C-alpha cells in the first residue's frame, strides 16, 4: 500500500500520525526485514514481509519439539 493511500483512506491521520511518522516506522520495519518497498510511478508501495517471522516461529517450534522429546526421556528416566 502506498503511504498517500494509507494516510488518505484510513483513519491513520485522524489519530494524529503524520505521513513522515508512518514513513519512519516503515523504514524501521524494512531494516528488520519485515517490510519492503517498491516504486509505482511517483509513489512507494510497501509490502509486509512475513518470511523472517515465519522462520523465527519455525525455529521456536523446533526448539519446543526438542523439549517435548527431552522431557519424555526424563519421564522414562525417573519413572523406571
Amino acid at each position, binding site marked *: 500500500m502506498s503511504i498517500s493511500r494509507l494516510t488518505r483512506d484510513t483513519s491513520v491521520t485522524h489519530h494524529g500520525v503524520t505521513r513522515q511518522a508512518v514513513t519512519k516506522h516503515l523504514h524501521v520495519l524494512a531494516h528488520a526485514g519485515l517490510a519492503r518497498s517498491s516504486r509505482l510511478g511517483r509513489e512507494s508501495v510497501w509490502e509486509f514481509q512475513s*518470511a*523472517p517471522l515465519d*522462520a*523465527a*516461529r*519455525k*525455529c*521456536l517450534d*523446533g*526448539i*519446543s519439539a526438542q*523439549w*517435548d*522429546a*527431552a*522431557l*519424555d*526421556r*526424563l*519421564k*522414562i*528416566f*525417573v*519413572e*523406571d
Partner: protein
Amino acid sequence: MDSPGRIEKHILLRAPRARVWTALADSQKFGQWFGVIFSEPFAPGARLRGKVTHPGYEHLPFEITIEQMEPERLFSWRWHPYALDPKIDYSPEPATLVVFELADAPEGTLLTVVESGFEGIPLARRLDAYRGNERGWTQQMTAIEKYVSQTA
C-alpha cells in the same frame, strides 16, 4: 504455553521430588536423559562444556552456565539454543535462560520448564543451520522413537 519470546512446558512425573531433583542436578544423570556427557558436576556459576551423544550431533560443542540450584525446588542455566553451526561463534549473542521448577503433585512431581529470552536472538538465521543439519535431526528422532518403544 509458548509465546514469541518463551517456551513453557509442564509435565507430571510419577516419581518423588528427590528423585526428579537428582535427575536434574547430578550432571551424570542429567546427561543420560538429555543426551550429553559432562566430566564436571553442576554448581551455581559453573560453566560446563559437555559432549553431545545424539547421533549426528557429536561434533557440536555443548556449553551451559549454571545459574541457580535450590535443592528439590529450582534449577536454572543459560545456553545458546539451536547453536547448530560449528563454524559460528554464538557466544557474543544473548543466551536464553532455562528454568526447571519442581512442585509436589498428588501422584508425584510436577515439573515446569521455561526457556525465555528468545527475543534477542536471530532465530531465522539459526533455522538455516537447522536445515543444514536436518538429516542429523531426523536420525535423532528415530533414535528417540527406538529408545522409547524399547523401554515402554
